[in-house]
């Protein structure tokens, strides 16, 4: 493969390891060719159920959390799954060795700044998955990285330890106060944004949080890049089932497919009121 070929591939893989941690399940998945093409902010689509009895035809997309070599078998993908619907439950409960059909990496990744500027990364719960590899890439470029992580409780918070390795400053907010400050992630945003001096804000999580990030960034004169999570039936840009309203080239309203034109979009480009 040429190092510039980032086109997605559709491959057979398998579950290599599965570990529950609080309310989240960390999976290691063999997916030949996908890890080699990975950039932070991209996702992988998984088919749900064994092929012979497959009745669920919509794909399920998961953020790629990490890419790691597995002895002699290429690169494995790390995925973080919160079991809540039929598809995510099936994947979270899939025993080691379960064959998988995967497509990826999908979507436009986070755009990295040309200069080593200060960056704030904001994420909630499992959606922090693409934020960690992003933090590493930003650090490699000399960017000062501040992290703001939120969750409803400690069981749904991605590792604060991992966060401290990849950032200069970390603020943790939980809904029940079980770790860090008590409250909502969005409420901590103005203060953390001001103290970070960030020129770029990256975010992943539920839509209201992304909207708050886009608004706060605009207030501070910073750029924002938000990773949208919209159910994408095909995840590959074919079905036009995941369109989000955006501002077009000449300021005209138009829509973008979350799966291929996103998932990462500029915060000031999303028409939040129409979403």
């Amino acid at each position, binding site marked *: 493969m040429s190092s510039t070929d980032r086109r997605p591939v559709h491959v057979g893989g398998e579950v290599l390891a599965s570990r529950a941690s609080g309310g989240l399940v960390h999976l290691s998945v063999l997916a030949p060719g996908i890890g080699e093409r990975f950039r932070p902010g991209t996702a992988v689509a998984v088919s749900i159920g064994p092929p012979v009895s497959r009745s669920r*035809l919509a794909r399920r997309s998961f953020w790629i959390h990490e890419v790691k070599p597995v002895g002699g078998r290429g690169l494995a993908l790390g995925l973080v799954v919160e079991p809540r619907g039929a598809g995510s439950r099936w994947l979270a409960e899939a025993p080691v060795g379960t064959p998988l059909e995967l497509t990826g990496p999908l979507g436009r990744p986070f755009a990295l700044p040309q200069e080593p500027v200060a960056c704030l990364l904001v994420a909630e719960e499992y959606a922090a998955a693409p934020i960690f590899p992003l933090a590493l890439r930003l650090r490699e470029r000399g960017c000062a990285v501040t992290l703001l992580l939120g969750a409803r409780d400690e069981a749904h918070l991605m590792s604060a330890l991992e966060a401290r390795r990849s950032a200069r400053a970390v603020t943790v907010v939980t809904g029940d106060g079980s770790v860090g400050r008590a409250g909502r992630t969005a409420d901590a945003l103005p203060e953390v944004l001001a103290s970070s001096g960030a020129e770029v804000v990256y975010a992943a999580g539920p839509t209201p949080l992304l909207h708050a990030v886009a608004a706060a960034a605009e207030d501070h004169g910073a750029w924002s890049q938000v990773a949208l999570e919209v159910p994408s039936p095909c995840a590959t840009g074919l079905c036009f089932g995941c369109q989000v309203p955006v501002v077009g080239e000449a300021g005209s309203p138009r829509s973008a497919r979350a799966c291929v034109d996103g998932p990462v979009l500029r915060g000031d480009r999303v028409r939040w009121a129409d979403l």
Partner: protein
Amino acid sequence: MSGGGEAQVAGLRLRSPVLVAAGCGGTGRELAAYAPLADLGAFTTRTVTSDPRAGAPAGRVVESPSGLVHATGLPNPGLDHFLATELPGLVAQDVRVVVSVAVTSAADAAALARRLGRAPGVSAVELALAPPGGRAEDAADEDLFAALEPHEAAGMVGTVARELPRGLPVWAKVRNDPDRVVAVARACVDAGAGAVVVGDGLPAMLPDGRPGGLGGPAVRPVALACVRRVVDALPHVDVVGVGGVATPTDVRAFLAAGARAVGVGTALLHDPTTAARLAAVLREETR
């Protein structure tokens, strides 16, 4: 019956009997990342209208056992933008391009056909006679023409056929309705359709009550019945079968029922390599 390696529909030679069905191949660019489009019989575009359409509110494609219910509202950039930005990219892929269109009136159909007739690289025009929402109120596409009666379908097919230059056929896409499909297909052919595509999604409902169209393996037996009935009644008509094609066995079943070619739709949303794999298997079988 067509050979596995190639096919002929409405006087067009196709490299394969496996086509991409309307609305399931994106702009073509996305699908081309997985396999060359040139090995397919044709690429049917997403359905284009004269004016740009934003599409329906969120929750446009919903899972149903062995199927997907679509209510996309046919998001598309409008014909002018499509001709300027999407068509050239498809033509450059060296694949036959069938442009799927939906219309609001006979005047709209005539104007749209005149412009398409001048566009370079179009192999056929597929006229969507039964968009998924049909005439249901509050369907995202309720302003679009939907033919419930054979004479309505015939009128619109005739309008488009008259405006297209010789050599650019109309393919009439009709609903997978076994009881009415023969009468509608006959009327379309009498009005000038070069082929009949059977068919569009079955009328269905989203969980929130919005009307949509059901596609996927769930509708395959219905589509097969429609193909067989049309072929039996109108043996000289070229029929393209669409509905739940996912495996080589499915392709063979449609061809055995008399279809000249098959359109792959929902299966592509699940596995973007499906059409390319099916075309390769059929090619291999006829070597």
